């Protein structure tokens, strides 16, 4: 079932086009990766999908509903957004950060209830970090923070999760770990996942569909095997790379900058 539909999206910050003619369809339970170099428009596209940036015309629909016509709380129940991990000013506990995912279910003057706390704890368990619940969020590792933010998105009980470079600043092991959790979430909870990555190898390993981006356009959008090719890598990254295929998977082996 097609959860998210993006149709002919164009967006500009006011000087030149940032995004042009973007169309994308995302099924529930599947992972679509926006792959491209820095400045190719991945983050801008994610923000347009989440209505943090507003294109001039309606072009993003979740379950047939226009995201620009939804209230913030309504949208947050449908769509979770995982920003790049960061350090907030105030050292809230891990559980309190996850609990913030319940905000859209509360009115302005309401405090989270026992049921909300249960849901937050459940989300924290599902990313395997329940033991950290009382630790200050500012004092855990980068990989753990990313997982906490994913748990927060899960606490929103959304049908779509957007992730902005979930592997940025993570070490080799944590990149793998975080992406495994994301894949599990997509499959088990039937959530449509749209994430941005800039490493073609990770994108190859963890995506159902890769949308290859350059200069604010999608230049290729298909299954990983047909998108990760020598020509595409050269066109988008300006790198001559050998695509090593051992029968179980492909690996992009960079040879030379073109």
């Amino acid at each position, binding site marked *: 079932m097609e959860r998210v539909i993006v149709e002919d999206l164009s967006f500009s910050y006011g000087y030149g086009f940032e995004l042009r003619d973007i169309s994308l369809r995302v099924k529930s339970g599947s992972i679509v990766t926006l792959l491209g170099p820095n400045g190719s428009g991945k983050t801008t596209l994610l923000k347009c999908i989440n209505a943090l940036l507003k294109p001039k015309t309606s072009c993003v629909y979740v379950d047939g509903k226009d995201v620009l016509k939804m209230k913030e709380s309504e949208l*947050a129940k449908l769509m979770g957004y995982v*920003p790049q991990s960061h350090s907030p000013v*105030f050292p809230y506990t891990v559980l309190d950060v996850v609990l*913030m995912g319940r905000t859209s279910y509360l009115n302005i003057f*309401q405090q989270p209830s026992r049921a909300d706390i249960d849901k937050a704890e459940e989300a924290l368990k599902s990313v395997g970090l329940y033991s950290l619940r009382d630790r200050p969020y500012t004092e855990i590792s980068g990989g753990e923070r990313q997982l906490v933010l994913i748990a927060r998105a899960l606490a929103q009980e959304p049908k779509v999760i957007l992730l902005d470079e979930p592997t940025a600043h993570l070490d080799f092991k944590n990149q793998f770990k975080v992406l495994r959790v994301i894949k599990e979430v997509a499959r088990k909870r039937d959530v449509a996942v749209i994430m941005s990555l800039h490493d073609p190898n990770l994108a190859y390993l963890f995506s159902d569909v890769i949308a290859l981006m350059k200069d604010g356009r999608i230049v290729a959008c298909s299954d990983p095997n047909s998108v990760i090719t020598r020509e595409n890598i050269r066109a988008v990254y300006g790198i001559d790379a050998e695509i090593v295929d051992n029968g179980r998977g492909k690996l992009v082996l960079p040879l030379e900058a073109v």
Partner: protein
Amino acid sequence: MGKTSFTILVVLPFITSFLSLFLGSYIIPPETILRMIFMKLISPSTHSPWPATYETIIFDIRLPRIVLALLGGVALSVSGASLQTVFRNPLVDSYILGISAGAGFGAALAIAVIPYAVSIQLSAFIFGLLAFFITYSIAKTRSGTPIVSLILAGVIVTSLFSAGISLIKFFTDPHRLAGVVTWLMGSLAVSGWGNVVSITPSVFIGFIALFLMRWRLNVLSMGDEEARSLGINVERDRFIVLLAATLMVSSFTSIAGIIGWIGLMVPHMARMFLRSPDNRVVIPASACIGSALLLLADDAARCLTTYELPVGVLTTIGGAPFFLYLLKRGGARAWRE
């Protein structure tokens, strides 16, 4: 929050208030005061066997002044905690942001031109809000409001409105000047039940709003984009926080003048005491600590010397070093250890 710390916090303002009844330049024997309080609680209407002066001093001078200090402490501290949260900046409060000076200017203007209590409060509120918007628009950049810009903009706005207050003093006719000057001292000496009654609704409304929004304050402190993606109408909610904070501070300022630093210090004390930045507990804790602290400062102001000192001077003497201490320790980290 543990049961013990909760009890300490709630009891704190009550104990301070009780003890404050015994303090003052007019000496009344403590046992008499105790008996008076007891009698007042048991049967308020019975004829009192003590001088009427005592009655007036305790119940019409000291008690309303205590209540005013409590209200002011709540107004300054709770607004400080909320403003620090929504601006993600541990070094701001209504004083730093220029709201107090703006409210002061509005009150001075009203006292000098149209001396009626309601219009003084309204004028203080309008100019407090105006001052905030000037500060905010100076400091705002594309990506947020940097700590230093906000503080500098606040300094500019504060000095602007202070200059305005001086101008008003200069042009006020001598009959009304006394009113402006007394008020400008930043003192609770002008209290009396009338003042208490006139600001109670504003402080109460502001406090209830911020108290109920205490969870939302946590979410707002994560930054605009994140709060939005979590389902919050950021502009609207932040504006409500701001209205509530300005309402409380400006109405108190319209009575007591500009009293600084309480709003900056108290939220930090609350976070340090609780070892948590969670506004669900920081907001009520700030109210308790703030009310007790301003009351203590006012007790000191009226008892330290034979003259009555302006309480604003005392809070500044205590607050400025505290501010420097926070700055040195990196502001945000100050309550973590």
